[in-house]
């Protein structure tokens, strides 16, 4: 079975300091180090484990510019067999979903794993749209997954510590939550072996997706920083006195008590 996994190139949040583009309508990509979206790492790992258990081929797919294609290569050292880079601009979630659905259809994936959210726009929109476009079931924020090759069982944590178990028939779109698995490290040998693996570049036209299909339904007008947090206040005095003052302020000024 072919196992698909969607990968998005997102800013490395550990080291990135953001700057906006001059028109405040985007992030200045030149200032940013990109890496695999952290939740997509769980998706990649699950795909790799499914292949190790059942055989098949793991194909990672991304939509974006040449930089996004480069990030796709990172997955080739952790269990992905082949990459498909859709060379297109990410205009909005629906356009991206149309392209990913077209790849899933032409590859004939049995399962499509995605991260539950991309840490850049935090939209969590694409996987559900892909499933809808394909007419496949979709299970989100999954913490355990198994399949016998024809049907699947997926667990998801719902509110109050309750676990919901979903079963159904393949093909399916699954989005990975933290805890689904522990992603492996890149072994040095696998990094070198990854050099021999192929990332195919495809265009929207070759997938049969027209410019009209990709016309954005959402436009981004502006980005802005959240308002600066007011400075904290230190209440002097001994503990009992300060506590009394703190309660007074919470009640009279902040009005939260």
């Amino acid at each position, binding site marked *: 079975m072919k196992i698909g996994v969607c990968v998005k190139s997102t800013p490395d949040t550990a080291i990135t300091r953001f700057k906006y583009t001059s028109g405040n309508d985007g992030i200045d990509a030149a200032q940013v180090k990109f890496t695999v979206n952290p939740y997509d790492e769980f998706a990649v790992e699950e795909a790799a484990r499914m292949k190790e258990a059942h055989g098949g081929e793991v194909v990672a797919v991304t939509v974006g510019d040449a930089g996004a294609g480069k990030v796709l290569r990172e997955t080739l*050292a952790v269990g992905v067999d082949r990459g498909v880079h859709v060379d297109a601009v990410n205009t909005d979630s629906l356009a991206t979903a149309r392209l990913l659905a077209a790849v899933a259809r032409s590859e004939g994936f049995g399962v499509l794993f995605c991260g539950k959210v991309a840490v850049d726009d935090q939209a969590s929109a694409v996987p559900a749209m892909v499933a809808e476009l394909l007419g496949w079931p979709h299970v989100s924020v999954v913490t355990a997954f198994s399949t016998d090759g024809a049907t699947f069982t997926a667990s998801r944590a719902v509110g109050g510590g309750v676990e919901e178990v979903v079963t159904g028939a393949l093909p399916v779109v699954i989005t990975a939550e933290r805890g689904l698995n522990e992603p492996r490290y890149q*072994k*040095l040998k696998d990094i*070198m072996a990854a050099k021999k693996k192929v990332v195919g570049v495809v265009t929207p036209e070759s997938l049969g997706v027209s410019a009209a299909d990709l016309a954005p339904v959402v436009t981004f007008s502006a980005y802005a920083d959240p308002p600066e947090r007011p400075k904290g206040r230190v209440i002097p005095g001994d503990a009992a006195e300060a506590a009394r003052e703190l309660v007074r302020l919470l009640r009279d000024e902040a009005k939260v008590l």
Partner: protein
Amino acid sequence: MFDPTAEQLELAQAVRDFCHAEIGPTVKEDDEHERFRKELIGAMGAMGFCGVPTEESWGGLGLGYLDYVVVLEEIARVSASYAVSVAVTGLPQIILRMFGDDAQRAQWLPALAQGQALGAFALSEASSGSDAASLTTTATRHGDDYVLRGTKLWCTHGGVADLYVVMARTGGPGPKGVSAFLVPGDAPGLRGGKKEEKMGLRASPTTEVVFEDVVVPASSRLGPEGTGFRVAMAALDSGRITSGAVATGVGQAALEFSARYATEREQFGQPIIDFQGVGFMLADMAARVDGGRLMVRRAAWLRDQGLDYGQAAALAKLVATDAAMAVTTDAVQVLGGNGYTREYPVERYMRDAKVMQIVEGTNQIQRLVISRQIKARYRA
């Protein structure tokens, strides 16, 4: 060769990710309690760190020394102790590849390269340090066997190693009476003796190793009788490159930590890096680390090219390890009172750096090697 290749950067990143997650969290505790976690060598072996230059057919990665020094530097940035463990497990592999026969290689190389066996190198003795050729451990031939008797000192992985490369006397005095042997860690009569309580590299066990009539088959001798000193010297030549790489990693860690600190710590209303006295100190530290790294890379490159690298390795070891000592000392100074406390890692870097000026031939021995070459070249 001046800068790492794209592939070397990828290897470095992978090593960094692993070390930060698996070694970093306990590095302080392991130092405090002199705790060596052997299972980490197995994990690093599975990642491919332990056999970087060993051929793929023998279970290694089949890469060059330029790649090897990148990996060692990255491990050392997190823990000098575990970088030394990888280098010391690498040493028997280099010796086996240069001097071993195929039976010996088949027995030991894959296990060492994959971190399933821990290596050790037993040369020094109580009265034989820099004067290595005066060693007194004996290997006496009895039929098809040798019987080893004597005590080795300052042996990294003593008592926990799975394979020791042992230098022992099979003939008369001097270097030509020495032979090299492969001795399994579980050989009857071999035991780890007193464990040294060390200033630095405290997560790396260093012990006396006692050989009480240890019987090994003649097939475990490396090369012909009397060539052991050549084996030891060749190992030290390679070891000089790796200790330079480990020192560079420690120096880099100290530079990074103190540079970040100097940009955050404010006194008199400004970050202390903006005081020229501190800023220039950091500039000198950066120059020293980079100088050492470049010389290590050159020695590694010469070795990869099959060119003579002995002199370059001695120069690199001298410069890189002196740099690490100077840079880590300055890092403590940049952090001031904080640097002197165990709450910050720079005092550990300083303690770890010191031994780099002593191992694989003291830096005085490096100067001796270098000055002999100068004399030979410029003699009237």
